């Protein structure tokens, strides 16, 4: 029963033509079998099958599910690297030199990803319209939009053009996903007010050179893609949030 339902969840890969043993879940990696099959993978899947059926007798449902999950995990692509037997020798046809280089690069990049603040700081320039000089912040030292906004507020509080106008931004609880923040916008139609007033709006330039409204994407994505920050006057920011504007219009009418 479990086997069948696992199969249904598998999706597209299951409809592939294959002459492997029936009832095995898992990825296409270890599963593909031509008329002759891969002797290594046949051995592996046979072993698993036999193990499963002998365990069937004395197992309860939970254990069965666990074993199936293990079987599925063994055959999924993620762990394929750790189980050489489930792979086809020499496929995909990539030179060993290249494979090794990429593996090394992957290893070192994973290492740096695991470090808390990353290898290289993410210093970006911050400008505020009307302020006499620019500032720099290291985005990696903040964990959320809220922290950033507090820091920015402090940074520019010395100017008379006050960040009080940024309060709407400070109030956004974006959490893990930007959509929450946008909901606040739309519900209060604050965006329209802000954009029509002389209030300030934080924007940023992303890697491709586009100017975006701060707050739409998850924090980590923002840190990775932000090249510089600009706190601009509301009126100038109108072009940056056309979709949000449309939605506001629709809500109002």
């Amino acid at each position, binding site marked *: 029963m479990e086997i069948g339902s696992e199969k249904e969840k598998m999706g*597209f890969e299951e*409809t*592939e*033509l*294959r002459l492997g043993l029936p009832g095995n879940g898992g*990825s*296409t*990696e270890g599963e*593909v079998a*031509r*008329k*002759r099959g*891969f002797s290594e993978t046949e051995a592996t899947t046979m072993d698993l099958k036999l193990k499963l059926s002998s365990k069937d007798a004395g197992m309860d449902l939970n254990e069965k599910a666990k074993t199936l999950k293990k079987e599925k995990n063994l055959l999924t*692509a*993620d762990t*394929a*690297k750790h189980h050489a037997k489930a*792979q*086809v*020798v*020499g*496929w*995909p*046809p*990539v*030179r*060993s*030199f*290249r*494979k090794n*280089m*990429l*593996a090394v*690069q*992957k290893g*070192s*990049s994973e290492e740096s990803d695991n470090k808390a603040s990353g290898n*290289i700081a993410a*210093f970006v320039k911050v400008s505020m319209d009307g302020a006499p000089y620019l500032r720099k912040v290291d985005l990696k030292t903040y964990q959320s939009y809220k922290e950033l906004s507090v820091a920015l507020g402090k940074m520019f509080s010395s100017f008379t053009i006050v960040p009080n106008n940024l309060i709407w931004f400070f109030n956004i609880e974006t959490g893990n996903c930007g959509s929450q923040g946008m909901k606040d916008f739309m519900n209060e139609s604050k965006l329209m007010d802000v954009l029509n007033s002389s209030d300030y709006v934080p924007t940023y330039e*992303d*890697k*491709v*050179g586009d100017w975006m409204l701060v707050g739409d994407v998850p924090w980590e994505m923002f840190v990775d*893609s932000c*090249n510089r920050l600009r706190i601009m006057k509301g009126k100038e920011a109108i072009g940056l949030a056309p979709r949000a504007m449309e939605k506001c219009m629709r809500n109002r009418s």
Partner: protein
Amino acid sequence: MNYFPDEVLEHVFDFLTSHRDRNAVSLVCSLWYRVERFSRQRVFIGNCYAISPEKLITRFPGLKSLTLKGKPHFADFNLVPYDWGGYVQPWIEALAKSRIGLEELRLKRMVVSDDSLELLSRSFANFKTLVLVSCEGFTTDGLAAIAANCRFLRELDLQENEIDDHSGHWLSCFPDSCTSLTSLNFACLKGEINLASLERLVARSPNLRSLRLNRAVPLETLQKILMRAPLLVDLGTGSYVHDPDSETYNKLKTTILKCKSIRNLSGFLEVAPRCLPAIFPICLNLTSLNLSYAAGIHGSELIKLIRHCAKLQRLWILDCIGDKGLEVVASTCNELQELRVFPSDPFGVGHDAVTENGLVAISIGCPKLHSLLYFCQQMTNAALITVARNCPNFIRFRLCILDPTRPDPVTMKPLDDGFGAIVQSCKLLRRLSLSGLLTDQVFLYIGMYAEQLEMLSVAFAGDSDKGMLYVLNGCKKLRKLEIRDCPFGNMALLSDVGKYETMRSLWMSSCEVTLWGCKTLAKVMPRLNVEIINEHDQMEICAEDGQRVEKMYLYRTLVGPRKDAPEFVWNL
């Protein structure tokens, strides 16, 4: 033409640069054969076991430039055991003993020892060029010998070799008097490099036009080198990592502006994407860009970089570029002739991989495309038919679907018709690699239409011997055929034994061919070496004729079975 003095003939032959033309000329008559052989300076030997060094030296006493290839192509993918063969030592020994004034040596998939390199460096006073591709067996000590002893060295080009790195001191072995370098490529070295030596070497090499650094060369050094070599045409960066606000980076930006000749760019083995803008000014003039090892550039940074490269003719990239990225390539790089898309995750199912959509976009935007290597998640017949129509000029078409027997995901049919369209439309096709779910039908198409096909690579395809027969009968110009995991057996192997003398080699592994079939072929064709590679003990103990052969490699040769075959290689 027979009434001209030899010198005139020789002068005319000088204009023939291709090996094939010169080979053809030598077959016309004995006079032409004689004139041609004495004037021949460049020789290409596609299989080092097809001929002996002694015969080479006897026929071409004026030899200056030699290219040798060793192991079969599938050795690249771990299908050939380590010490199968392909040693360059006997060649260098024989050449050293003779009076040949060797100046250039180019090797591919050969085993090169430090002793060989030492002997090479001491034996030829005018030695100028050493190019090693996918070779192994040597260390940086061998490189030190080359550096120290080849007084007029111009090119040292190491591509994707497995080199044991003992230390970076080999660079210091270039004497101060060595000022002739035009090309230096050590990108594949894994170890440290003496940076000061490198800088001094570049400073005293005014003719340096090609320089590819390894990972150990930092950005600071790159900047200093570029200051000394603003005429570089081909640059491979080492580690390209720095703080974009630093003075070093700013210096680099200024220095690069002076390097107006750079047309080939590669490297970025380590990269800080925010430092990429420094190279934008040179992107405008690039004709060749190799980012296939630049795993650190992806997403929008990659696309931004590509948008600057409107004149690209050759692009090597990782599949993390995605279909969307390929659309940008298609709209930006209209002069593109060669595209290679490598898998960024060769061990797993690439979640970033490209699909048929990317390829179709390329075919629309890049009508001059003639060489393709494409690793992808999936492919459809419709896409291949569209590509065939948009790009009829393919010379090389190599498609690799990561799941090797995947059908057309839309129709669930085999990809026979798609590849059929390719061979029918691309009348100049010389090289083809197939993948995906394929029946005998695709081979029928290939046999019918691929008249210029010289090299075919097949894996997990076909239903019966007919598949292989279609190809052997139809492709008159076939030179190399390599097959793995296909249901082709003795009937196909033995149907036209004479065919193999018109080809360089045939590889068959995990097929249905048996020991009897191989023995029979070997008996009938004495000018073929039929080698069986046995890695399992079973064969040694009870080698029954009816047993399937795991790996067979056969090639035409004028010198009989080789004497350096290891124990596990049987020459039948």
